[in-house]
C-alpha cells in the first residue's frame, strides 16, 4: 500500500462546507450592513455589536463542547442570573470584590456540578434535567435579590460595558476574552486527546468507554465548566450593564444554542468546530446590528429572524447529508474492489432502514 499523506483535500475537508458557508455569510452580512448604513463599520457600532455578542459567545464555548458529547445545558442563563444577583446582593453587604468573585464562581461550579451529577450519576436525560435546573436556578436567582436592582459597582468594572479592551475603542472586553478562549478551546478540541474524546463520546459513548475514556467524568467536568463560565459571564454582564436585577439574562440560553447550532455543531453530537461557532456568533451579531440599523426592524423583529436562522441551521444539514450520500454513491462507482462494495452497499442500505 502506498504511503498516504494527507491530501490537500483531506486537510481542507474539515473546513469545507459549513464553515465556508458561514464565512461567505459573514462577508454578505458585512456588505449588507455597510449598504444599510455608513455607520455600520463605525467604531461605535462595532463596539455595540461586540458587547451584544461577547457574553453569548463566551457561553457558546462550553455549550459547544457539551453538545458535541451529545448532551445539552439549558440552565446557563439561570446560572448567569444566580451569579449576577449574588454579586449584587453581596456587594450591597459590602463584601470585598475579590471574595465575591470567588463565591460566584464557586456557585457556578456547584450549579454545574448538580447538573452533572444528575446526568452522569443518576443517569437522567440532560434535556429534562437542565429544564428543571433552569427553572430552579432562575427561581433561586429571583429570590436572592427579589425585585431590587443593584447598580453601584465600582470602576473600573463599571466601565466594562463602555470602554474598549486595552483602549481599542471598537473591541469590547467580552469579545477580547472570547477570542482568547475560543483559540484555546479550538486547539483543545481538535488537537488534544481530551478534545478527541469528546467527539468519540458524542458518536459512541459505549465505544469510548471501552477504549478507556472516562465518559462520566468528562461530562461532569463539562457541566461544571459550563457552570463556572456562565457564572463568570454573569459577573461580566452585570458589570457591562452596570446593574444586576430581576430577570437578568433571560432567554440567553436560547440565543447561545442558536449560535452553536448555526455554527454547524450537530445537535446529535459528535460533530462541530469552534471556528464555525465563532463565525456564527459574528454572523448573528452582524445580522442583528445591520437589521436594527434599518429603521424598519426592532429587537422583537429580530427574534423572529433568530428563530428562522435556528431552523435553517438544522434544516440545511439534512439537505446537505442527502447531497453527501449521493456524491458518495457516485464516487463508489469508480472503485474496483467489489467485495468491499458489497459490504458497503449492505451497510449503506442497512443504514437507511
Amino acid at each position: 500500500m502506498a504511503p498516504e499523506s494527507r491530501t490537500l483535500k483531506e486537510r481542507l475537508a474539515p473546513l469545507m462546507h459549513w464553515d465556508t458557508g458561514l464565512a461567505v455569510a459573514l462577508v454578505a452580512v458585512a456588505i449588507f450592513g455597510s449598504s444599510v448604513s455608513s455607520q455600520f463599520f463605525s467604531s461605535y457600532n462595532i463596539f455595540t455589536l461586540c458587547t451584544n455578542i461577547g457574553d453569548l459567545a463566551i457561553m457558546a464555548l462550553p455549550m459547544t463542547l457539551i453538545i458535541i458529547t451529545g448532551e445539552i445545558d439549558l440552565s446557563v442563563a439561570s446560572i448567569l442570573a444566580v451569579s449576577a444577583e449574588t454579586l449584587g446582593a453581596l456587594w450591597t453587604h459590602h463584601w470585598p470584590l475579590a471574595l465575591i468573585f470567588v463565591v460566584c464562581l464557586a456557585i457556578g461550579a456547584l450549579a454545574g456540578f448538580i447538573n452533572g451529577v444528575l446526568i452522569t450519576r443518576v443517569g437522567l436525560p440532560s434535556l429534562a434535567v437542565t429544564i428543571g435546573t433552569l427553572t430552579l436556578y432562575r427561581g433561586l436567582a429571583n429570590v436572592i435579590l427579589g425585585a431590587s436592582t443593584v447598580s453601584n459597582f465600582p470602576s473600573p468594572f463599571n466601565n466594562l460595558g463602555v470602554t474598549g479592551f486595552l483602549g481599542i475603542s471598537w473591541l469590547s472586553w467580552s469579545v477580547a476574552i472570547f477570542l482568547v478562549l475560543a483559540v484555546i478551546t479550538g486547539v483543545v478540541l481538535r488537537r488534544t486527546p481530551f478534545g478527541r474524546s469528546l467527539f468519540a463520546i458524542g458518536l459512541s459513548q459505549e465505544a469510548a468507554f471501552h477504549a478507556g475514556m472516562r465518559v462520566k467524568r468528562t461530562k461532569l467536568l463539562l457541566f461544571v465548566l459550563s457552570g463556572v463560565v456562565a457564572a463568570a459571564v454573569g459577573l461580566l454582564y452585570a458589570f457591562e450593564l452596570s446593574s444586576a436585577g430581576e430577570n437578568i439574562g433571560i432567554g440567553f440560553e436560547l440565543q447561545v444554542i442558536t449560535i452553536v447550532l448555526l455554527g454547524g455543531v450537530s445537535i446529535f453530537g459528535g460533530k462541530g468546530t469552534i471556528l464555525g461557532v465563532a463565525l456564527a456568533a459574528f454572523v448573528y451579531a452582524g445580522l442583528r446590528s445591520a437589521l436594527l440599523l434599518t429603521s424598519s426592524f426592532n429587537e422583537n423583529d429580530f427574534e423572529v429572524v433568530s428563530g428562522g436562522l435556528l431552523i435553517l441551521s438544522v434544516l440545511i444539514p439534512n439537505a446537505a447529508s442527502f447531497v453527501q450520500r449521493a456524491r458518495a454513491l457516485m464516487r463508489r462507482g469508480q472503485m474496483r474492489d467489489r467485495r468491499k462494495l458489497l459490504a458497503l452497499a449492505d451497510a449503506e442500505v442497512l443504514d437507511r432502514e
Partner: protein
Amino acid sequence: MGCCVSSSPSWPPVKTMPPSSPDTTNGANDPTPRKQPPGAPRSEATPVLSLQGAAKAFAGVHALEGVSLDLYAGEAHALVGENGAGKSTLVKILGGVHQPDEGALLMDGREIVLGGTADARAAGIAVIYQEPTLFPDLSVAENVFIGRQPLRSGRRIDYRAMDAEVNRIFERLGVQMDPDRIARGLSIAEQQLVEIAKALSSEAKVLIMDEPTAALSPVEVERLFRITETLRAEGSAILFISHRLEEVFALCQRVTILRDGKLVLSQKLEGLTADDLIRGMVGRDLLLREHEQHTPGDAVLEVDGLTREGVFADISLEVRAGEVVALAGLVGAGRSEVARAIFGIDRYDAGSVRVGGETLRRGSPITAMTAGIGFVPEDRRQHGLVMDFSTEDNIALASLGRLKRYGLLFSSDEREFSLDWAKRLQVKYGRISNPVSSLSGGNQQKVVLAKWLSREPRLLIVDEPTRGIDIGTKAEVHRLLSSLAGEGVAVLMISSELPEVLSVADRILVMREGRLVARLTREEASEERIIAAATGAAVTRNPVEGNH
C-alpha cells in the same frame, strides 16, 4: 482432535461441527443423533416462493447476479455464504425492501411485485431479522398486532379478541407467554418468539429467519427448532440463514450457496457434507492449521475468587505469558461478564484481579489498560469501534495519550501510526480516512485488534474474536492470536465456536451458570468433554481438577 461421535444422549448444543471426512454421508455418523423429522409431504410441484434470475446492483456494483431460489411449502431451506456474498440483499428482496433490477419473484407460480415491506407482509412473507425490534413499552400482544389490531364497532381496538388470538398462536407454537406482559425485559429468545407470533398472526406462508440462533442458548435453540418444525409440518416455507453449518444440517432439507453475488448451488441437502458447503462458500479447501507449541512463561493474569452476585461466582484462573487460554461455555454462562469484570467495564463484588503481580483496581478500564490489558469486546459495532470515525481514528483511539507531543496531537503522527498498524494486520480499506463503517466485518475486527495491539499489551482479552467474520479472515485472526502467544503475550479468548477453541487454545476453561466447572489441557480436550462440562452432563472421564 477428539472423536466425533457423540455418545451422550443430550442433544448437542450447536457448537459442534459435523465431521469433515467424506465418509459420513448418512445420518449414522452425524453427531446430531436426531434424524430429520418427517415434515409435510414436500410439494415438488410449485414452490411457494420462487426467485428467478434475480440481479441487483447498487451504484454499478453487482450485489446479486442471476440468482434463483425456490422455497417449497413444508421445507426448511438454508441460505449460506460468506459475508458479502449477497445473502442480506437476497433477503431484502424477498422481504420487499429492495426491488430486483432483473428477474422475477413468483408466488405460487404467479409473478408478484413487492413495492415495499407492506406488500411483502401482505403477500404472506415474514422476515425475522437478527436483532428483533419490538416496542419495549407496548405489551406482547400489541407488539404482535401493531397496526393490525382487531377492531370492534367504531374502529375501536378489541383487546379481548387480541389477547385471545395471541394466546391461540402461542398455544400453536407450544409456548406460554402472557400477552399482556410488557415487551421490555424480554430475552432475545423471547423476543424472537414474539416476532414469530407476529409472522403467524399475519398468516405468513413464508418465514425468513436471518441468523436467528446467534444469541440463543442451546435450550432456546432447541425450542426454536421445535417451533420451526411445527411450522414446517403445518406447511410453511422456511428460509434459514446461518453461519453455523451444524444447524443447517440439523434443520434444513435444501440449501442454497451464494458466493460473490452468484449462485453456487441450490439443491437438496441430502448427500452434501460440511466440506462441500464450505468449498461452495469459499471456493477453495480450507487448510487445517498446525498448532504451534509455545512454552508459557510467568503468570500475567491471576484471578482469585472473582464473584458478582447473580452473575458469576468464585472464578479463579490464571493466564501465563505465551499461552492462549480459552473460556468456553454456553451463551449466558457468564464468560463475557467475567472478562468485562477483569477489564473493569463491569464491577464485581468479591475477589481480586492481579496483573503481573499487581492488584488491579476494580471498575476502571484505565487501570486495566495501564497495567497492559487490551480488550476486544463481543459487540464490535457498539463497543469496539466508533463507527463514524475513520479507520485511522479508530486505530489511534486507545493510544492518544501516548501519541501526543507537548500535549498536542499532530495529524502526521497519527497517520503514520495508524498506517503502520493497519499494514501489520493487513487491514483492507479504501482510504484510511474513510469511516470504518465502510469496511467489511472482518476488516473491522482487524481494526479493533490493531487498536489494542498497538498498545503492546501483555494480556489480550478477546471476546468472540471471529463472530460474524468470513472464513478467510477467521483464519487470519487465528493465526494472529497464535503468533501473539508466540511473542509472549498472554491471551484470554472467549469463544462459543468449539472448532476455534480446539484449534487455537493451549488450555480450555469451561464455565457453566457462572462457575468454572472444568479445566482442560489441549490434549485432554474434545468437543464432547467441553460440551459435557458446559451443559452439566455427567462427566465420565477425568474429574474436574484444581487450579492449573
